[in-house]
């Protein structure tokens, strides 16, 4: 499949930091003059603020005209690769973000509505929320979804807070202080459990590629509040004992939360509730066609069984015949994790994506992502220096596979990060390495998903193969990459040095002078 690699080069604008742009007196925006009857009534603005609380000097912002601002940020956008190139960023399920949905959610019907409007004026948005709830119920078997959480990690936190409320209602919270997870669960699972006040037990991986049921049995007790796991994991390994795990935790009196971050391969094949889970989470910005947006606005759609419904944060959207209303709930709800109802535009986008796909389309997307990953694996393992995580496990991996560049590194000194930096020279955006902890040396985790064409996938593999050859023939070329990007390799040696880091221009200027 080898094809000539593209003669790619990023736009290079040498764009100054915005704080260096503009000139005194320029304006990017004006506001209407104050009507005479207003000034006659209230006088000068400054007299409406107590002296102690008046701003004393102008804000140190750039003074720019409107087109200057536009061109500056367009330049910055052009120096961002995004999905203009090919991104098989594993664990994030890069898929098409239909532009229709962007246009629909920019309409005032969504962008210019307020959550405190009378529900009589919000029937459209309430109906979309309800309809997406029904779709997710069908996919998961859960009884109710809520969209307040602002991302997957926030949904994980929401589960921890619902767990708190559940055991508090049973008078067991003082005793149920432990959450069990695994080394391959996303870092947000243990982190949010700890932030909610729980102690965390992390089960290690064993020979089979997942933690053993024996280890789980040893960890559960009458202190167990919840299990928080993903399945399949980021190596593409599915724990076949997960039903037994759920039983073990339930017997100990704990709840079971299914982090469905890796849903793409199994959607329409399994249902979290049928596996016995009490709650699950879908990421609308991944699996359901919403854009990543560089890290949100996102939604962690949290679904649970009927028994937990009363602990969900409010408000919930309820269908009353043909009309929709908000249920503000009783005293048991776990409390809010974020103001209002969640990222409403993303709820609309995900509803739209689900309708565009339909049941058959969702099945097709899952199948294609499984096919594409296993197709990639065939070709990737032909590249010398690349090995698969836990190679003794021969079953087909799910929608992604974790690999290692460790052999290449041993042979050439070129690391996974070097390879990543070189691949971007060909218009192929960074692969994902691995969440902590790294289980294999020099890890990388591509995920093809259903969007990318075979030509795209082949090109991605060709670029990687080419870079691996370069690692042997001209290792310095790879180690000093990138060469075709907006900037070269950053010097990250002082990013953790308080004398030199600068998260703002004002700090930078002060430290430059020092």
């Amino acid at each position: 499949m080898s094809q000539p690699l593209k003669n790619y080069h990023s736009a290079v604008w040498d764009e100054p930091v915005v704080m260096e742009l503009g000139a005194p007196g320029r304006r990017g925006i004006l506001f209407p003059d104050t009507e005479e009857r207003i000034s006659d009534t209230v006088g000068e603005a400054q007299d409406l603020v107590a002296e102690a609380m008046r701003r004393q000097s102008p804000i140190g912002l750039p003074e720019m005209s409107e087109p200057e601002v536009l061109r500056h940020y367009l330049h910055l956008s052009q120096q961002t690769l995004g999905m203009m190139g090919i991104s098989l960023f594993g664990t994030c399920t890069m898929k098409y973000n239909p532009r229709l949905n962007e246009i629909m959610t920019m309409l005032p019907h969504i962008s210019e509505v307020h959550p405190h409007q009378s529900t009589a004026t919000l029937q459209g948005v309430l109906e979309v929320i309800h309809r997406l709830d029904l779709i997710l119920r069908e996919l998961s078997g859960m009884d109710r979804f809520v969209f307040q959480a602002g991302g997957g990690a926030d949904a994980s936190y929401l589960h921890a807070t619902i767990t708190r409320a559940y055991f508090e209602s049973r008078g067991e919270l003082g005793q149920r202080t432990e959450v069990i997870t695994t080394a391959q669960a996303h870092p947000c699972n243990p982190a949010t459990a700890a932030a909610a006040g729980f102690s965390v037990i992390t089960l290690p991986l064993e020979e089979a590629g997942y933690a053993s049921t024996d280890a789980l049995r040893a960890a559960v007790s009458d202190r167990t509040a919840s299990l928080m796991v993903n399945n399949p994991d980021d190596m593409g390994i599915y724990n076949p004992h997960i039903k037994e795990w759920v039983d073990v935790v339930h017997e100990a009196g704990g709840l079971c939360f299914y982090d469905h971050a890796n849903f793409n391969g199994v959607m329409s094949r399994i249902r979290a509730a049928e596996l016995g889970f009490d709650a699950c989470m879908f990421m609308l910005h991944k699996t359901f066609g919403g854009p990543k947006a560089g890290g949100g606005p996102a939604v962690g759609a949290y679904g649970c069984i009927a028994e937990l419904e009363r602990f969900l944060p409010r408000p919930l959207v309820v269908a009353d015949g043909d009309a929709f209303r908000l249920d503000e709930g009783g005293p048991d709800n776990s409390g809010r994790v974020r103001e209002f109802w969640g990222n409403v535009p993303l709820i609309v986008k995900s509803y739209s994506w689900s309708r565009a796909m339909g049941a058959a389309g969702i099945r097709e997307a899952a199948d294609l992502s499984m096919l594409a990953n296993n197709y990639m694996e065939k070709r990737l393992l032909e590249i010398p220096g690349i090995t698969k995580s836990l190679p003794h496990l021969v079953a087909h991996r799910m929608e992604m596979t974790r690999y290692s560049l460790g052999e290449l590194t041993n042979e050439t000194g070129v690391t996974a990060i070097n390879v990543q930096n070189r691949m971007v020279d060909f218009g192929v955006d960074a692969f994902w390495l691995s969440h902590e902890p790294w289980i294999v040396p020099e890890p990388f985790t591509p995920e093809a998903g259903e969007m990318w064409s075979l030509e795209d996938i082949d090109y991605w593999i060709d670029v990687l193969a080419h870079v691996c050859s370069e690692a042997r023939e001209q290792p310095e070329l790879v180690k000093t990459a990138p060469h075709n990007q907006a900037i070269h390799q950053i010097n990250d040696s002082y990013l953790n040095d308080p004398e030199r880091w600068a998260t703002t221009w004002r700090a930078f200027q002060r430290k430059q002078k020092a």
Partner: protein
Amino acid sequence: MLEQESRVHPYMANSTDAARQRMLEVVGVGDVAELFEQIPSNHLLSEEIQLEPALRSEVALRRHLMALLGQNDTCEENLSFLGAGCWQHHVPAICDEVSSRSEFLTSVWGTPSSDHGRNQAWFEFASQLGELVSMDFVGLPLYSWGAAAGHAFRMAARLTGRNRVLVPRAMDPERLAVIRTYCGSPELKGHIELVGVDHDPATGRYDMADLRSKLTDETAAVYLETPGYLGIVETDAAEIASLARTHGAETIVGVDPISLGVLAAPGDYGTDIAVGTTQPLGVHMNCGGGVGGFIATRDEEKYAKQYPTLQVSICDTVVPGERGFGLTLFSQSSYGSRELGNDWTGNSVYLWAIANATYMSLMGPAGFFDVGSTILRRSHYAATKIAELSGVRVDWSSGFFKEFVVNFDGTDKTVNEINEALRQRRIFGGKDLSESHVELGQSALFCVTEIHTADDIDRLVDNLKEVTAR
């Protein structure tokens, strides 16, 4: 072939029979079902999923969405005075243009080089926000003001080793509910106790005597908001910060950054940790989905090491004179240290940070001064005119920004009745406070911004006069 029988879908290049066949051949299986061999058969779902028929054509999908969304009645078609944590400000056209750029919209985690433009935009968000609040260290955005405050309280608890935070009793119930969640449970680790401080009924500001009586050497932080939920500007902020310091407590200040062209910056009156909202800075209300938050502090190591967020720092590259941007203090995040990191982080509202950066660049110092002045004058004009109505009171008729409380006890009508009547006249009245702030009686929180003209305000006043008439 009938459309329903075709697998080919516009979103999926490999949905052709040829592509599927090719992948099956290379993988060496006859049927895709063989790839699911890791899943035990008793895990597979009991019945196939049933969804409404697909709308594979954009023609049909658009029409369906328009019909659904068209049921909403918007704040553009009506005259709205709703605020209370989500405000109708003008969103400049180029904020929408920039934040809908495909490159920003579809980016995930590239390298510092392939994400260079976006990382610079993030740095410019932090840099400009730092100027607004007059603080040197700013993290990447958080989910909301409440989430930012919740994390800030936890930062203060870790910094001081104490677990009590003083908060305004009259604060936004929505925001307080989020903060309560972040403060945990007394039965588990890391719980923070919230102590409500009264406001002075005459001014709406913190009751200083009550504050003094509750501030002790066990206080981790004093939290104040300016403007607060009820619009009040806290004129004693410097004194509160100074009192907190004498007790070894942190001062956490919540602000609405659109006020900072006319109101003092938190960094200039002794604030240790500033938090607030980002929605007013170029993000649509989005039915509450536009909210975002921030945390800012002095650039001191002890504060920097407590941030739960990610943050970008400006840095050099291997080429002399070239600038880049990289993540700083990554290892203290949950990505770096799992449960040993500071709280947690994940996806947030990073695209809104780019809209915010665009907005702040457009505004400049004069834009912020103008918008602040405009809001001050228009909101005070509205309060003055409304207070002239029979049976209607505005108790805190000065010293507020953007929002003010209107009391209708003298009209014999509830806020709900008044708002319903206004709605028939295509006006969305103020947020009803009668349940959340019972002590204020039949009161509503009205919000007036730069989008409201004198005519709009007069129209509100005329209609209020009619609907409150006995």
